[in-house]
């Protein structure tokens, strides 16, 4: 079985993003970029499945301009076998990304596609579900546990009311939550080795995907700030303050 992993290049989660004064977006100048943390977890899970002998190949896919090759190389250094860049300078939205993934899926015929449950830049949380819909296959989102049983997978999903368990036949799309695993650290020799692993490039046009969208972002602004708070000295003052505000 082959496992396909989506990797998105995003602003590192430790960076405090700043909105540009002209409202055109957030400041990406000189900002550290990383693999979306959820995608690292997705890849880690695939590597574990492969290393347990339940899959033969792990392929990482990223959509974007040439800088995404950095993140693909990180994926290869973590242990993926092969990388595919879907090259485009357009800012693809989730439906376009799902359409591009579908084209890759049709070429590669994976048994499993594992994606992050959301990207920490636009926080959309759509692509995996959309890919599953377009592909006509099962989706198991927000996975915190994944067990393969031959031709199906048992997935534990983190939902608002607790943990939901579903069985899905393969091929399927799984999107992962934080508690699925802890991704490995990349070691220096692996980075060297990753340079020799194959990285294929295909353009969005070659895949026949239209980057257009029914939704456009017109403005970006910083969030409203909360009014500055006060400090109290002890529990008694805290209780008094809460009473004054009618909260107790």
């Amino acid at each position, binding site marked *: 079985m082959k496992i396909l992993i989506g990797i998105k290049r995003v602003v590192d989660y430790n960076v405090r993003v700043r909105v540009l004064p002209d409202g055109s977006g957030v400041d990406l100048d000189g900002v550290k970029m990383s693999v979306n943390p959820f995608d690292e977890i997705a890849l880690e899970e695939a590597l574990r499945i492969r290393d347990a002998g339940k899959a033969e190949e792990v392929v990482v896919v990223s959509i974007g301009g040439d800088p995404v090759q950095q993140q693909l190389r990180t994926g290869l250094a973590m242990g993926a076998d092969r990388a595919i860049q879907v090259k485009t300078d357009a800012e693809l939205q989730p439906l376009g990304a799902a359409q591009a993934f579908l084209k890759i899926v049709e070429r590669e015929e994976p048994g499993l596609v594992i994606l992050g449950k959301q990207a920490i830049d636009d*926080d959309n949380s759509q692509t995996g*579900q959309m890919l599953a819909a377009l592909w006509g296959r099962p989706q198991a989102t927000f996975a915190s546990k994944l067990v393969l049983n031959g031709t199906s997978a048992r997935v534990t999903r983190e939902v*608002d009311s607790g943990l939901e368990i*579903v069985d899905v036949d393969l091929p399927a799309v799984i999107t992962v939550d934080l508690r699925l695993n802890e991704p490995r650290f990349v070691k220096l020799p692996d980075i060297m080795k990753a340079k020799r692993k194959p990285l294929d490039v295909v353009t969005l046009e070659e895949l026949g995907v239209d980057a257009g969208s029914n939704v456009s972002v017109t403005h970006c602004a910083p969030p409203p700030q909360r*009014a500055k708070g006060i400090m109290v000295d002890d529990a008694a003052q805290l209780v008094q303050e809460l009473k004054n505000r009618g909260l107790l």
Partner: protein
Amino acid sequence: MSRILIIAEHDSQTLNLATAKCVSCAQAIGGDIDIAVFGSAIGEVAAEAAKLEPVTGVIAVEAEHLANPLAVNWAPEAVAIASGYTHVLGPSTTLGRDLMPRIAALVGVNQVSDIMEVSGPHSFKRPIYAGNAITDVECAPDRTVVATVRTASWKAAGSGGAAAVEQRAASSSPAEHTRYVGLETEGGERPDLQSAVRVISGGRALGSEEKFGLIYGLADRLGAGVGASRAAVDAGYCPNDMQVGQTGKIISPDLYMAFGISGAIQHITGIKDAGTIVAVNKDSEAPIFEVSDIGLVGDLFQVIPELESLLG
């Protein structure tokens, strides 16, 4: 004029409060508002939905394979109804986040995730970067808008109406490739996090599952719901459904009290809509104090027992 369809969230017994919040968002968009209820024994839930104001109609689709909220089964039902509507809305709960993009893809549109404000029938505000930026988005007016509603941004619509309930047969057959196995829920007596008026939260500082009991104790004293940071959940002090933040629950209680939580941006994004934020942390430099309305530098293991005795 807009015609808005809301996909109801429920557990077969009661309608989730998130649905009433979607009604408020729909009201801001303006137009006729219908609610679709999918499930197997949904008579009571459909009746409850019909009372929400100002709902125009309820469409109840009852079938065995719709009993559990599997997106693979619910999405085709929503799509079958959607053609008559300009907007299809669902809550930004885990149910909505799972279901709505599947509907959007089948309709052939991008979804607007987490509507926090309506600027016009096709113009919305939504957060990105864990709420560190707010974007304005415009939807093509000639396409169906499929969106999730950021529940923490909306008050629940009131009850008192009497819309008609229309029964419809399911239009799709069960997806054989996906099987619901079950739900593990701790579901105690405490108020639900997303609707609780008060929430008491604990972080990594609690140190163990046993000591996390301090948080439960104070919460019960105040009739509050219980939340947690990711670090506390990861460490196994409490169940996953208590996680508050970017990747947990986004909540909007009147009072939020955080004990031993540092205030990482991913946590803060989940509590920004709270009325009053109280932070107790022994580190005066902790970032949580940048957003708290009332801060107390202190050791939670002292402060919580003191609070308990002061509350009598």
